[in-house]
């Protein structure tokens, strides 16, 4: 459903952030994009959501196709309405709004009619019962894990066909990281495809079908998630070089 072909992205006149990146997400798939800081993961998502201009960036070559539609140069608003939405890194929920208002404003942004929005909100409450208990509370008062749930729930209000998640486990307690993984699997089970950008490779590979590894703005490995999880190659590429040599023979 999503097809990125030979994408090149540049910030300003000289900083090249992505070079020749190609990847795809099929109907009903969960695809992970892995990579260290600065590998170009967030740039890729900005290109997909149409927010590169907010950062002074532009696509210089290549194409992005979503369900047969060309997404290059399309406004973020149209992209959301086409069924592709992003839950950004750092959650970025609207802290001055209540939990429920966050969901209502997202429905408005995606053009979901008010009456239908109540039904969609019901499905989000079902997925995150904790949020429903705090619906009246100001979103800024939620815990980190709850804020992440709200960020995902807010994106789901648009009833996306493809959900982009940028670092959903960042800054969360290990226990919360596991539940984020479970949430992704549940969202997938309900019929939404997911493109998951993560630094936490273990969690990401556990929930995805396929994975793409980015390094310095290019794809350096791609393949089935279980295959990549087992490979030393991934560890070398992505965790920064070979593991330290063991000290065989060194004096104890």
């Amino acid at each position, binding site marked *: 459903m999503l097809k990125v072909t030979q994408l090149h992205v540049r910030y300003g006149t000289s900083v090249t952030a992505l070079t020749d990146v190609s990847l795809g997400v099929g109907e009903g798939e969960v695809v992970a994009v892995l990579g260290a800081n600065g590998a170009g993961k967030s740039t890729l998502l900005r290109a997909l*959501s149409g*927010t590169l*201009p*907010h950062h*002074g960036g532009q696509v210089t070559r290549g194409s992005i196709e979503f369900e047969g539609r060309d997404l290059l140069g399309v*406004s*973020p*608003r149209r992209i*959301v*309405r086409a069924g592709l*939405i*992003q839950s*950004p890194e750092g959650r*970025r*929920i*609207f*802290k*001055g*709004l209540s939990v429920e*208002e966050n969901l*209502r*404003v*997202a*429905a*408005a*942004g*995606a*053009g979901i009619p*008010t009456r239908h929005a109540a039904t969609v909100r019901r499905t989000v409450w079902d997925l995150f019962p904790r949020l429903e208990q705090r619906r009246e509370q100001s979103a800024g008062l939620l815990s980190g894990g709850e804020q992440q749930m709200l960020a995902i729930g*807010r*994106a789901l209000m*648009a009833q996306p066909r493809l959900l982009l998640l940028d670092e959903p486990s960042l800054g969360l307690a290990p226990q919360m990281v596991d539940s984020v993984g479970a949430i992704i699997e549940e969202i997938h089970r309900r019929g939404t495809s997911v493109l998951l950008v993560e630094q936490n490779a273990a969690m990401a590979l556990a929930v995805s079908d396929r994975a793409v590894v980015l390094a310095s703005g290019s794809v350096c490995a791609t393949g089935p998630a279980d295959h990549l999880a087992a490979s030393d190659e991934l560890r070398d590429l992505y965790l920064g070089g070979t593991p330290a040599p063991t000290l065989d023979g060194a004096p104890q």
Partner: protein
Amino acid sequence: MSHLTSLLLNGLSTGAVYALIALGLVLIYKCSQVVSFTHGTLVLLGAYLVGTMDDASGFIVALLIAVPVAAGFAGSINLTLLSRRAGAPPVSLAILTIGIDLVVLSVLTQQLGSNVLNISHPWGETRWDLGVASMSANRGIALLMVAAVAVSLYLIFTRSPWGLAMRAVSEDTEAAALMGLSRTTITTLSWATAGALACIAGMFMAGPPTPGVTTTVAVVALRAFPALIIGGLDSLRGAIVGGLLIGVAESLAAGYQHELQFMGSGFAEIVPFLLMLGVLVARPSGLFGSREMTRV
């Protein structure tokens, strides 16, 4: 005693007009972080529109036409000139609004010449006798208007999708864009609302007890700036409180002119700005404004 009550009451009612103007400025600032220096002229434009049309078509029709026209004009300033400069620092945009102000003000000054354009308000010169004091009906209605506008804005911001979108955009433009909320639409709507409020304020300002529409209206409207700064740039509540405070301070200074004679004549006119300086020294972000926070 009744002198004081009367001064307070008249101060509040003058302040109500400043509050209407300041509310528009806050709306614009909240959505786009731009302080609009075109606003005084928009107030004059509103008064001018009502004043030119009401002879031919009657006051109500003139107002019903002028408010949407002023709103459309303010909205189109944002749409054609400001929103195209997305990413430009708010300070440059504020300077751009000074330029727009100069152009519009010159055109209006030329149109008005040295004439005084009278608005024939249906309530005319009526004064309301409130027992302890009396006030002009014009200003009394302005005071009621501010209350109505405050309640409607509160409902809009908490209930309507547009109000929620406005709060979301003012908090995090990029996250709002990712949710499909268009910044241009939201800022244009806020400009249009501010333009409508400016038009209504101009209509009141050019009525009793002050003479009709002259270019002075634009100058007097500038007193909404101290109101804005006293209340806090991003607080709607602050705009109302600031506006009322300025009105009362001005009215008291004018009323006790004799006692304040040692400050020289015309002291009342600088009182709003003195008050603003005082607040800036004590609370730089205004009485209700959110404090600027910078991570070091």
